[in-house]
């Protein structure tokens, strides 16, 4: 079965929508085991392991993060935060029909708000996507914040 450019693009639009609508179970289900959500701390960072990142999380950590959001004693989420993406049409950078792996790059804005505060992050997301059992899945996701080395307050949801 083959995958079209438009299918990959639609996949990204859908993935981001899940985050904004808090459909985390669906979102986690998109991930392949062994995948990592990486948010570098440094501009054009290459090493996720031996220098600090903002996030470099496997599925267990992502589940923990999501589960925590709904906890009765999750104080930093009383009240809850909300988030919102506006994404530019994704670029499909790689299409390896043969092994069913794909890479997309998406420029986007992320807005997170809580009480009377709101902030905006300019992001570039790189998705490694794989076709498994006829389904598109996330193999890895890298999210670069334009000013990744700036000082931030809490970033509580998933950019």
């Amino acid at each position, binding site marked *: 079965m083959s995958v079209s450019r438009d299918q990959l693009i639609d996949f990204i639009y859908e993935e981001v929508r899940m985050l904004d609508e808090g459909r985390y179970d669906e979102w986690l289900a998109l991930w392949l085991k062994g995948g990592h959500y990486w948010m570098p*701390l440094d501009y054009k960072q290459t090493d996720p392991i031996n220098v600090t990142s903002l996030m470099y999380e496997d599925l267990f*950590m992502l589940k923990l993060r999501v589960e925590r959001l709904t906890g009765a004693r999750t104080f930093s989420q009383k009240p809850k935060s909300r988030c919102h993406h506006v994404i530019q049409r994704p670029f499909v950078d790689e299409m390896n029909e043969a092994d069913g792996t794909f890479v997309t790059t998406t420029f986007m804005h992320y807005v997170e708000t809580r009480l009377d505060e709101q902030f905006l992050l300019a992001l570039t997301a790189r998705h490694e996507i794989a076709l498994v059992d006829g389904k598109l899945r996330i193999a890895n996701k890298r999210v670069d914040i334009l000013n990744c080395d700036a000082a931030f307050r809490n970033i509580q949801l998933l950019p």
Partner: protein
Amino acid sequence: MGHYEQNPAAIKALFRGNEVHRDVYTDQELYRLEMKHLFTNAWVFVGHESQTPNKGDYFSTQVGDQPVIQVRHSDGEVHVLHNRCPHKGTKIVIDRAGNTGKFFRCPYHAWSFKTDGCLLAIPLKKGYDNTGLENTDNAKGMRAVGEVKNYRGFIFCRLAESGISFEDFFGGSLSSIDNMVDRSPAGRLEVAGPPLRYMHHCNWKMLVENQTDTCHPMVAHESSAGTAVKLWKELDMPEGTPLPAAMEIIAPFMSPYEFFENMGIRTWPNGHGHTGVHNSIHSNYSAIPGYMDKLVEAYGEEKAKAILGESRHNTVYFPNIMIKGPIQQLRVFIPLAADKTLVESYIYRLVDGPEELTARSAMYNRMINAPSSIVGHDDLEMYERAQEGLQSDGLEWVNIQRLYEEDEDFSEEAIENGTTERQMRNQFDAWVKFMTWDMDVQEAAE
């Protein structure tokens, strides 16, 4: 509370031994006085020498609210200079780090300076003939801070020309730095990447106090650490499955009060102290194969065991840093305003040590101290709620009385129950000391 400038009595009245007045956290005049007195007369952390390894390497930062440059001079020594052109005040560099070669050159009119700050050249110098420029401080170049000390790679400085010596200021507390550095078979650390930069809308002292606040983890961090433990249980792994690194790091946050009581707390004079005298949340990290052998090779068995025998938790170096020896982490709490603090969290590589330990430090740093950390989220929440809550006139005093004793003497090293708030009291004892250090003098002078 009235106004504090040149009023040592009013400042001393802010700390009553068992409690402290909220103004120390909320009053902007006190913030300015902290910059002018406390951060000028105390020894303050600047950076690590590995951030400026080669001649001409510089790193721009601030000491209190003073912009400074850490630079490696042509003699190989690390110097700390005021980041201010003596001509019209232009900051000489504003990028966080770089290499300036043999000299600094101001971008505005090209006055140039040796990397120890001395004036090198002024274009069209003849324009100053017979003007008396040579009699001004401006002609001396970029001014250096009062005194600089490179202690095993960590650069500290005192802004004031004269005052307490490095040794008198830190005394026995240096043992924590020693232990952290000794963990490198080569006895050297190297900074590993840039620091996390985490902005807090609260007073810097709240963060420093939190470093030895052993009664908050199991409460404030239940949503992260507690949920982690629960999820891990649910995975229901076969007996004896080793904990993944992430669990080794986060699970101990849920330890019971007894655990923290038994950790113990040690205080040193001048506001320094640490948790984890006997053991700590870092005690049970899995060993890295081959690491011990390397240490034995380097230090001999006894010392090697002693080095790893220590698992000090957080060591506070008053006024505004904390280090974690077992994971080679250093956090700076940079005061930007009475209600604004920037936290920078560094990690270091053990020269000749196993890269696995660097990976552990990096994981700890991002899991616990990042703006995107599910642990950090709740800490910031507490600080910022407190900063707002202290606006309340319903109660003006903050309580730091746990395990308090009459007439505590902070001039002597002491070891106590790990849940005492003595270290917070120790910090305020030092706070008063260095806030009023030169006030009385100045007062007398008037």
